[in-house]
């Protein structure tokens, strides 16, 4: 029974929520660093969906973040938000607004991401991202959309290149 592809487990604990869970072999401090350092975010956040051209992070409560991916044909995918809670190496809470969202979704309260970096038994990290979408309609919209830009073949190729660089 597959409810996820690869290793990111996606569940819906409630009608207005998405929960993403992933085990990582690195300790929480490193994962937190990869999550909050612009140069590092640029290397993973697009997941092979094109270069991350903007990774602005003002890491303080009330500070803003904005990430932009430049996809196929210069098509830009941009997200921004505001940090609401910051506990270094442990927990981050921030809003996440997709700048290309339909007007009715954009007008509503933005989804809130609650990210926890918990130590796991083997020196790694149990990462959870709870996305509070506030409405079931928005939750469903987010689940249906992913970050598709219709260039899956190219995405796979880019991912291969990224792997070969390490």
């Amino acid at each position: 029974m597959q409810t996820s592809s690869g290793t990111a487990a996606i569940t819906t604990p409630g009608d207005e929520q998405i929960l993403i869970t992933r085990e990582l072999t690195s300790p929480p401090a490193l994962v937190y660093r990869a999550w909050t350092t612009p140069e590092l975010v640029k290397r993973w956040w697009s997941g092979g969906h094109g270069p991350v051209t903007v990774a602005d992070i003002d890491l303080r409560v009330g500070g803003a973040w904005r990430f932009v991916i430049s996809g196929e044909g210069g098509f830009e995918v941009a997200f921004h938000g505001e940090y609401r809670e910051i506990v270094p190496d442990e927990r981050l809470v921030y809003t996440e607004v997709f700048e290309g969202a339909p007007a009715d979704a954009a007008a509503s309260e933005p989804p809130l991401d609650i990210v926890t970096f918990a130590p796991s038994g083997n020196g790694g990290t149990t990462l959870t991202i709870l996305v509070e979408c506030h409405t079931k309609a928005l939750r469903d919209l987010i689940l249906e959309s992913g970050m598709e830009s219709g260039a899956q073949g190219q995405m796979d190729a880019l991912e291969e290149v990224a792997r070969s660089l390490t």
Partner: protein
Amino acid sequence: MARAATTADAFNAIAEPRRREILDALAGGERPVGDLVALVGLAQPQVSKHLRVLREVGAVAVRDEGRRRLYRLNGRALKPIHDWVSPYARTWSERFDALDDVLHDLETEDPHADE
């Protein structure tokens, strides 16, 4: 973690880990409840409760054979669920793959290299 109210749709039905175990067990073929109890390691009332939820959303079907009730997977009901969530799951799986590479580099680099 607080659990919010949940609608009885197919995706929520299979979000419960034990129900996924039951579906995995049924992937091998039709089985009576007793088999599922043994396989999943829950008491029969709990297994029956999970089966009821799965039946309500069409994820499993049931038929009586003599005194036994046999459950089977209804794959057609489950495919849309997988299709539905797969773009989002793929996005995150791809991000995590790339994140793994970044973390691997951080673990192996000079700890002061980026300071």
